[in-house]
């Protein structure tokens, strides 16, 4: 097992390098550099910018160097100084923006993923074990609604209904009086009063897929001979389902765990916009639109690195769960 983990960890390194290159390309992609638009702006405002001055600005940003040199420079700063460059739009270091938004995004996403699993797995089991029952049909219907209704619409709808009935407006993570306040019990309660809605919406959005996948694989496994064998030994039915077929049916879910994080982050972009949540999603969207490339590159890089580690964790879980994978 340890050997397996080390081997997998070894594979991560080239992956991470590839990710950094892709992120760098993202930064370089838009036509014209940041300096071009900056100088153009200055000239439009009536300033005289000489070719020499322009060259100096380029040198300041390292844009006079070759691509590999620029890449090395950018990576070096990230690795050794935690410096992701500056956001053009916010006029602040990218690292500061990431620090502000990435942790809350990860906590929100992980919470939503945890709730999704906690609900979807038992419901998937129920659906499979009681195939074609009222339960199964009801869950299928709810699942389809969950898939068909976009998260932001659901968020808006629930927000409206809650406001109509209680006068409470769900907005952001905290109500305005608590936004800058130090942590206290009241602040935690306020957080709970707000955060349930995005968690609910993201959970419903992710549940349907997991329930369907689990139902299908479990139905397959339930017909396998080893389930009958266990039954023939006198294993109680529920123990049998949980001990044998579920162990195998859970594999496809474990292997998707790694990229659930970016999927949830992607799914929460519009939800976050609607609910005014300070997560990373909306910033990524804006950064891409406004060609704020250091910011976009930084976010893409962080998310990709998290995905790679997520995949590593899901590989480890798979190997723990299934000896055939572990012994490959």
């Amino acid at each position: 097992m340890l050997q397996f983990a080390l081997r997998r960890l070894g594979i991560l390194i080239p992956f991470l390098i590839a990710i950094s290159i892709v992120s760098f390309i993202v930064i370089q992609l838009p036509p014209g550099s940041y300096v071009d638009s900056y100088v153009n702006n200055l000239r439009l405002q009536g300033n005289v910018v000489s070719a020499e001055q322009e060259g100096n600005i380029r040198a300041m940003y390292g844009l006079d160097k070759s691509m590999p040199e620029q890449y090395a420079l950018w990576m070096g700063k990230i690795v050794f100084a935690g410096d992701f460059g500056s956001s053009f739009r916010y006029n602040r270091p990218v690292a500061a923006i990431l620090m502000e938004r990435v942790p809350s995004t990860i906590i929100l996403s992980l919470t939503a993923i945890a709730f999704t699993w906690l609900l979807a797995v038992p419901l998937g089991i129920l659906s499979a074990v009681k195939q074609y029952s009222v339960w199964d049909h009801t869950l299928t219907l709810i699942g389809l609604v969950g898939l068909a209704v976009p998260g932001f619409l659901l968020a808006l709808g629930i927000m409206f209904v809650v406001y109509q009935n209680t006068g409470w407006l769900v907005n952001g993570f905290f109500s305005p009086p608590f936004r800058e306040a130090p942590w206290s019990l009241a602040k935690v309660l306020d957080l709970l009063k707000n955060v349930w809605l995005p968690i609910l919406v993201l959970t419903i959005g992710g549940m349907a897929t997991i329930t369907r996948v689990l139902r299908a694989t479990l139905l397959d496994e339930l017909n396998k001979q080893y389930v009958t064998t266990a039954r023939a030994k006198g294993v109680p039915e529920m123990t049998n389902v949980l001990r044998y077929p579920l162990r195998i049916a859970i594999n496809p879910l474990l292997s998707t765990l790694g990229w659930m994080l970016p999927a949830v982050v992607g799914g929460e972009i519009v939800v976050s916009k609607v609910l005014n949540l300070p997560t990373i999603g909306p910033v990524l969207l804006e950064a891409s639109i406004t060609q704020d490339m250091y910011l976009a590159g930084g976010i893409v890089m962080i998310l990709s690195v998290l995905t790679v580690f997520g995949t590593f964790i899901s590989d480890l879980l798979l190997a723990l769960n299934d000896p055939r994978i572990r012994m490959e």
Partner: protein
Amino acid sequence: MTPSASLKSTEPRLKVEGLKTYFFLDHGILKAVDGVDFHVGEAESVGIIGESGCGKSITAQSMLQLVRGRGQIVAGHAVLRRKQGEMVDILSLDPDSAEMRSVRGDDASIIFQEPMTSFSPVHTIGFQIGEMLRLHTKLSEAQIRERVIAMLGRVGISNPEVRIDEYPHQLSGGMRQRAMIAMALICHPQIVIADEPTTALDVTIQAQILDLMRDLQDELGMSIVYITHNMAVVAENVSRVYVMYLGRVVETTTTERLFKDPKHPYTQKLLRSIPHPGRPVERLEVIEGSVPSAVDPPRRCGFFTRCPSAMAGVCDAAIPALTKVDDEHWARCFLLSDEKEAEDEWSSL
């Protein structure tokens, strides 16, 4: 074993009567087992033979009420004498009840056909065999481990201390089937149903496994039902044979008589279609056609579509009853008797 072995017990270990197991499918009712009677004496071995699809495995699984999904045992009794001596009709128990579960594996167990798929691929052999003891005894984990190692050694698995912690994919097919036998026998059940225990194995291994089962039977004294389509298995291992066709027993007698004097046209064809000991292989016949679908079968002799002696207007007008040919010999054919099978509530379905 000699045919007289069947006479040594008076009261059977297991007596099955009128077993019907149907699958209620979208396009009709599949009558997989449609009125099967058989009994097995104390420490006796009997065989159930027939082509693939005749309902042998479903008969076996019905004995422990393992049929799920659309399958249902709609009629029948299976009276088993349990370890303590009490008689129970196991088919009258709720399939999910604790009492039914206490029968499974402890009083009666099944050796399954497919050694490849019969074990969970993600649990060790030792865990899966030990589970039997965990369910049916109060032994400690250490005692269980000891018993499992001893049993693995007994069925001929070398290095049982190491093998016990291995996974099914690390064992060869023959080893896996030995492990399956170890699992089925570890609680010393009084009756074992071996559903094609050697079909998936090559000939040498087949012989070894059958030898092993005979040894274990001598040692533990259990009754065995061999389900097979291999005549050699029947000839060498069982005292009496039930021949099944399309969900029914069409002939039953001692092994000796079956080979010497088969009465039913299907049995005759079956015996001519396979090589068997004591007769030189001249030319093997094939039974033309295939077993017809058991979905909503018409009320006629099941073998009508393939029988060389079929009599139009007779054999397709009713189902022949299983009638006595003479002592210890029964067959179901209008050539032998006019008696028809009585109709019941399920016949018209």
